[in-house]
């Protein structure tokens, strides 16, 4: 609801600006460091600029790490979104017995730190010959499912199934209803759920470290490695900026999808008497 008074609007605007600064300010030194060739104390800004941080990061294997993170994020989203959507559908549309208990169980992974359950699972995955990246994604899926389930459950709560009945009577079989009606209509929450699941995979450190056993090197591992050393500020900043790019891009896509349809400037008037249109042959 928009504030009605001028003072209220001014307060709202200043609140929004403060919130914006809260998000943007921490990124400023990061961007400066990423673009700095030389930045010595007590200079307020870097004394010279250059892409050395990015170049060094690439030489240090940031490219493959970036690719591994991307694959891990996509795998996690690819596993957690369908599972979450199906769980949400079951809970929202046709609740099973003890739905509340199931809901609590689905939420449980959020309360349990991943490293508590991951110890030992690495051995199981190793013995089962599960590829490390896929194994990590399998474990991260458990962490991601609560997010995808609850996003999709909210979506299903507002989803009118009558529109599917309408599609059925218009000739759509269940598969067509899924592809041409349900998925397009749920595209926004699906993409939001995918973004959350992607972020779980993209930003994971512990599970990757334990299950990957050093074979799988992702961006967070690179960032942690750079941060543990000294004199790597530019490389660390470049890695961090690179790590920001995909989530921001996805956020932008989800934001664009979530934009409401624009209303026309003026409603068109509708004549009342239909003209003869030569449709008599329809029988």
């Amino acid at each position, binding site marked *: 609801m928009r504030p009605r008074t001028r003072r209220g609007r001014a307060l709202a605007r200043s609140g929004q600006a403060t919130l914006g600064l809260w998000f943007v300010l921490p990124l400023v030194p990061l961007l400066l460091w990423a673009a700095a060739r030389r930045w010595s104390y007590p200079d307020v800004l870097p004394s010279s600029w250059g892409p050395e941080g990015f170049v060094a990061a690439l030489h240090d294997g940031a490219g493959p790490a970036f690719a591994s993170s991307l694959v891990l994020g996509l795998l996690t989203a690819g596993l957690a979104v369908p599972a979450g959507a199906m769980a949400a559908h079951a809970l929202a549309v046709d609740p099973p017995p003890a739905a509340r208990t199931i809901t609590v169980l689905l939420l449980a992974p959020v309360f349990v730190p991943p490293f508590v359950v991951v110890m030992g699972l690495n051995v199981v995955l190793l013995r089962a010959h599960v590829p490390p990246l896929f194994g990590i994604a399998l474990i991260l899926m458990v962490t991601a499912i609560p997010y995808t389930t609850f996003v999709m459950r909210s979506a299903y709560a507002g989803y009118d199934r009558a529109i599917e009945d309408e*599609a059925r009577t218009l000739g759509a079989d269940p598969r067509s209803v899924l592809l041409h009606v349900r998925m397009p209509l749920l595209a926004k929450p699906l993409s939001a759920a995918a973004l959350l699941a992607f972020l779980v995979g993209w930003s994971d450190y512990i599970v990757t470290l334990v299950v990957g056993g050093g074979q799988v090197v992702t961006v967070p591992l690179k960032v942690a490695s750079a941060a543990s050393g000294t004199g790597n500020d530019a490389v660390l900043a470049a890695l961090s900026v690179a790590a920001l790019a995909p989530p921001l891009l996805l956020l932008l896509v989800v934001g664009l999808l979530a934009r409401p349809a624009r209303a026309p400037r003026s409603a068109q008037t509708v004549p009342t008497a239909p003209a003869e249109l030569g449709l008599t042959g329809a*029988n």
Partner: protein
Amino acid sequence: MTATLHVTGLRKQYTGSAAAAIAGLDLTVSSGSCVALLGPSGSGKTTALRLIAGLDAPDCGDVRIGGVSVLQLPPERRGMAMVSQRPLLFPHLTVLDNVAFAARMAGASRRAARSAASRYLELVQLGALAQRRPATLSGGQAQRVALARGLAAEPSVLLLDEPFSALDPSLRTDMHQLVMEVRAILEPTILLVTHDQLEATTLADSIAIVVEGQLLQHAGQQELFGSPASLEVYRFLGGLNEIPGVLVGAGHRSALGVLPTPRMAGRPDGPAVLTVRQESIGVVAADDEDADVVGVVARVTPRGPRTLLEVTTKAGPLFAELPAGRGVGVGAVVGLALPMSARLVVPESGGRRRDRVAAAQIIDGSPSRETQVLAGADRASEHSSIRDRS
């Protein structure tokens, strides 16, 4: 491609429900005709429509289109299309693609489907809005698109589920006009579900009245109003006057005396309720020779261009409608003329035994042994009967 719809013995009782939502519905909608399923909210009309469409499975009964049972077919293969109270347009598609949806599902190319769809969109006078999104349409426009989408499916039977009840009266009238013109052009077979008598009488060739899951009467408009099969039908169609009494020969004996009634073959003598629709009753001077009943005006209720009078008579309250401009005040003594052609003796139904008791009391002056027994039984059920009527 229109076809005749036959529904036989259709029944559905939902789990946990004490009564069947629809109990043994038998209905025929001839090819190219329009039948209205008219009933109050919760009477089972929409359930019947969903069973016919295949969206729910009946407990028993059959649905045949063109003589072929479609009971085992899923909704998408029954050759029907449904237009609901809410337009239920696909928000992610343009208006044109909404109308083209059925053709696309049937395997038509995008171009062919859109080409056919645009003709139906023109039919509902919305060709100019083809590229708009449903969210940008007004309620009336959206419902027109929904109708075009249903027609574009070229269904054997078009199911209309209270399609215009969410529209304002002016738009509803426009939509009625549109449906009539569409019927003249395409001659679709239509099963219309509505609780609006005006809509049913305007659009349908015949009307099937459904109350509490039971089909009470299926007939043309004239027959329904001229010869209601039961008091429930009479009441549902808005009839207010019920005079309990006894049918004796060609007359109805009640507290009003013996009123001659039109002869009706096969109607036995005995307890019967005389009905006269309020709009048929003439209000005359108390000493007018046309006055069949004299009473005192107890209440005057304006009803748009007409006024409803409640007149207290020996037989209880009777209602009469007056045209605008005739002022009659509360307390006035008036005569009521009950035209012979409007006097209908309607059979009593099981739930109306109180009338029979009252009639017996009127005739005999004191309760007989039979009426005392009946009255005792009625007192027990009086509370529930009143609740049901309210």
